[in-house]
């Protein structure tokens, strides 16, 4: 900041020299006034701002986390609602024999090949499919700790019924399950003699079949030949 012209003006140069370092005499009363003014100033102005900014930041963080939690919770609950709306009449079918067979009134046709045998069986008490509204009835544990999303790999989306779950049951176990209320082997007893008169065997493939008492079960042919005693000088084994 220099105008560079003061040296040309003797009056201004003289005034600058005389007034630049001028010091006014001290008046002690002025400090008292200044001290009172300083007392009125907020002493912790800076820290108050810091505190308020921190407070605002913390509150915003809490609110943000709360909103995020609500959004996540709502996001997990949303998929079940449209599925339920799309399959209002879907039948709840339990995969185990504990549920009576009479409840199997509407088996799901759109199923995988694994479950086809089960659906076609007239006496099947288990159906390997269920819609999403029956998910809560499953006894299978859900991975609540890891993921709240009820859908898993292998779940299907049916355009008519919505989300269709594929159970994790072994179909072989389902076919081999026995209903003791309806045995597979029946027999009639002659009341006069007290002997067995007729025997019926129910097969899931051939249906009910009558078996005579004289029928015998022929053993399976032996595929392994009888070992022969080795002779002297004759080698046996892989060289033959």
């Amino acid at each position, binding site marked *: 900041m220099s105008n560079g012209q003061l040296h040309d003006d003797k009056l201004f140069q003289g*005034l600058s020299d005389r007034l630049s370092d001028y010091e006014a005499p001290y008046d002690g009363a*002025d400090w008292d006034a200044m001290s009172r003014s300083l007392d009125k100033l907020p002493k912790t102005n800076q820290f108050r701002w810091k505190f308020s900014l921190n407070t605002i930041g913390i509150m915003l963080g809490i609110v943000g986390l709360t909103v995020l939690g609500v959004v996540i919770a709502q996001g997990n609950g949303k998929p079940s609602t449209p599925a339920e709306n799309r399959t209002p009449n879907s039948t709840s079918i339990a995969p185990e024999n504990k549920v009576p067979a009479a409840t199997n009134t509407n088996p799901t046709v759109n199923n995988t090949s694994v479950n086809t045998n089960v659906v076609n069986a007239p006496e099947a008490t288990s159906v390997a499919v269920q819609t999403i509204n029956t998910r809560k009835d499953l006894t299978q544990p859900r991975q609540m700790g890891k993921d709240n999303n009820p859908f898993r790999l292998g779940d299907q989306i049916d355009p008519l019924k919505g989300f269709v779950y594929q159970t994790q049951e072994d179909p072989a176990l389902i076919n081999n399950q026995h209903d003791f209320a309806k045995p597979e082997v029946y027999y009639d007893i002659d009341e006069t003699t007290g002997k067995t008169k007729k025997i019926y065997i129910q097969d899931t493939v051939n249906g009910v079949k009558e078996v005579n008492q004289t029928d015998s079960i022929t053993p399976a042919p032996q595929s392994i030949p009888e070992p022969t005693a080795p002779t002297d000088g004759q080698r046996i084994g892989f060289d033959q």
Partner: protein
Amino acid sequence: MTENELIAGCVRQDRAAQEALYKRFYGKMLGVCMRYAKDRDEAKDMLQEGLIKVFTTIRHFAGKGSFEGWVRRIVVNTSVDHLRRNKHQYMIVSTVYAREGDIPDQPEEIEEDSLLGQLSEAQILEVVQGLSPAYRTVFNLYVIEDFSHKEIADQLGISEGTSKSNLAKARFQLKKQLYNKIKTADEQRTATR
């Protein structure tokens, strides 16, 4: 107490350090304010306002350059702001002064070098305080603070032409008033003899 200790104490808002700093800069800064003010009371108001700014912003002093220069700059800016806040009040006075001073009486017979030698600083300061606020501010910024006309124009929100015009009128006024002061002083000295 060293200057750094003073600054550190003022940052901690230690009252003893604030008082020491106040006393250290009081004389010089009040002298600065008196050049911008019309009297000592107004100068004290400017000084108090400026030093409060110093105390409240001293933590921002980066330590680069002179601390006294930093304080002085704050006090000057506060004084100019004080005048600008009261611009409406001063503008009326300034217009009257400007009309009276358009054609100043030129004391041709007096040499400029000898004018100031016959007066004390307090008497010179009285002459400066007798200028209108507009002239006084331009005079202070140009002559004492060594601002250029462009910087003065930016600082005061006026044109460079106005700054130059005010400075020229201030010069005439100062020369005239200094001459009158010397003349009055001579008459008083003659009367006392």
